[in-house]
């Protein structure tokens, strides 16, 4: 209780900085500085790609996403950050494809240049792509599979987050409290991805805490992050009837992630590893029969080089060649009432290029070689006798464009 009181006093004293208190400073200078801030800003990003699946001999072309940012500065201390996303170009009633979603909508409260608080629908700092997911900021047309199916990027939830940085050491930190996941919605083959609420009618009986430490030192950036959250938002009597542990952190999902990035003189390298633990997976399976695993893990390593690095910097052109190896297993261990699926044990080798004619426009081409484990016939109900046999190897060709502004 004493710790809680001390924390409350400290946070209140920090919050008092939002008020426009009188100072010894020149007020007209403050007004001049305030004019430097734009009131409302608009930006966005998008990408489209052609994809050829060599196993199915099927090609598709899709405007994968278009996102609009709108930001507004109410004053020096408080601003609004929003992003709205349209996937697959259109949403038509009854059709499976297409989605319109609010990707972010939060208020940002600045305590000082080093510390701020966000409240609303935001993207917690977990992994690399969750915050840094613009198509001009990653290699390849597709987001890597580890940060799609293990860490379900882009993962946004409702809550509050605190972001800060030390003054004299290049360490940034973040912590947040958001709504928890919905284990009833976990789907076999997509990890925890379908358990996200993404701002809509989230249960708040269960919550989650997130945190990260990020070191930015010259050419290196290193991060560790974590998540601990409850995944049952039912009322206690409902949860009891399903023999699930309810409550704020009941039936937890636990995530750990670490990554290191290096970039210098046109060369870049990235390595990331992550693991998810769901200790009560057997309870979830008993309640919902969704084959939830006890553990998942994934990791990738990527290197890239800009072969235009030595050319005239004013050109802004960049031609980066990259290669990335990804490995993930969405059911590395399963409870006794689960069924193993080795097709979720995957390795991907992606190689290609990103060409920037100017900084925020990119043309991408890449090939993904995919290998999975064998199909488990126990998971096929009423097999179609005409269906081709499952192929553990596949080759995917992607050619696309991306932009941000």
């Amino acid at each position, binding site marked *: 209780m004493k710790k809680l009181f001390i924390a409350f006093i*400290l946070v209140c004293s920090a919050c008092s900085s939002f008020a426009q208190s009188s100072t010894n400073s020149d007020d007209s200078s403050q007004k001049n500085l305030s004019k430097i801030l734009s009131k409302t800003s608009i*930006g966005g990003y998008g990408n489209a790609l052609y994809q050829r699946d060599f196993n199915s001999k099927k090609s598709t072309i899709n405007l994968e996403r278009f996102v609009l940012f709108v930001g507004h500065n109410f004053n020096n201390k408080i601003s609004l950050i929003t992003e709205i996303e349209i996937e697959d170009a259109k949403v038509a009633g009854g059709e499976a494809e297409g989605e319109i979603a609010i990707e972010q909508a939060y208020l940002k409260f600045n305590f*000082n240049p080093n510390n701020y608080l966000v409240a609303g629908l935001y993207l917690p700092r977990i992994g690399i792509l969750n915050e*840094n997911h613009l198509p001009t900021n990653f290699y390849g047309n597709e987001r890597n599979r580890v940060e799609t199916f293990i860490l379900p990027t882009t993962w946004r939830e409702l809550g509050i987050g605190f972001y800060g940085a030390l003054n004299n050491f290049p360490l*940034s930190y973040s912590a947040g409290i958001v709504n928890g996941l919905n284990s009833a919605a976990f789907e076999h083959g997509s990890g925890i991805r379908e358990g996200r609420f993404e701002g809509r009618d989230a249960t708040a009986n269960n919550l989650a805490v997130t945190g990260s430490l990020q070191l*930015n030192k010259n050419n290196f950036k290193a991060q560790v992050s974590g998540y601990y959250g409850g995944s049952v938002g039912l009322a206690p009597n409902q949860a009891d009837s399903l023999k699930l542990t309810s*409550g704020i*952190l009941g039936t937890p999902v636990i995530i750990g992630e670490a990554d290191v990035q290096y970039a210098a003189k046109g060369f870049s390298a990235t390595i990331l590893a992550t693991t998810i633990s769901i200790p009560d997976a057997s309870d979830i399976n008993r309640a919902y029969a969704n084959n939830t695993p006890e553990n998942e893990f994934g990791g990738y390593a990527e290197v890239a080089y800009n072969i235009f690095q030595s050319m005239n910097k004013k050109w802004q052109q960049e031609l980066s060649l990259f290669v990335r190896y990804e490995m993930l297993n969405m059911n590395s261990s399963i409870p006794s009432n689960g069924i193993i699926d080795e097709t979720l044990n995957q390795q991907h080798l992606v190689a290609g290029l990103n060409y920037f004619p100017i900084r*925020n426009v990119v043309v991408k081409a890449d090939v993904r070689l995919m290998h999975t484990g064998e199909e488990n016939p126990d998971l096929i109900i009423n097999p179609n006798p005409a269906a081709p046999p499952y192929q553990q190897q596949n080759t995917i060709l992607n050619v696309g464009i991306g932009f941000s502004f």
Partner: protein
Amino acid sequence: MERRAFIKTSCSLCVALSAGLAISTFSSCAPSLIFNAIISENKIAVPLSLFAKSELKIVRVKNYDYDIAVRKEPGEKFLALLMRCTHADNQLTNTGNGFSCSLHGSVFEKDGTVKKGPAEKPLKKFFTEKIADQLIIHLS
């Protein structure tokens, strides 16, 4: 027990965050990259002696939510940059060899030019001049 565990975890987080806030604001106790300044007649005065051993100082202006990075360049020149991302006005992080924005991933070089988007404009530069033993940063 779940409620107690959550309150305990959250309170520990609050204490840690508050301590972090306190540590980052009480900078006078540590040898500092940060120099605290106030504005007078649209100008900020920074002692030139600060740059005797360090080429970079971050000037923290009272009641203003963006720092100013001041770098000593060859030829006794100084470059003062507003650490505000030119894309969506987010505060920038000093990485040692430039600045980065966590909001959408923009990266700026030491001289304020854009290294990686979506920002398109370089960082705002302030005019500086040396008067006696002070570096004067003009904000207008």
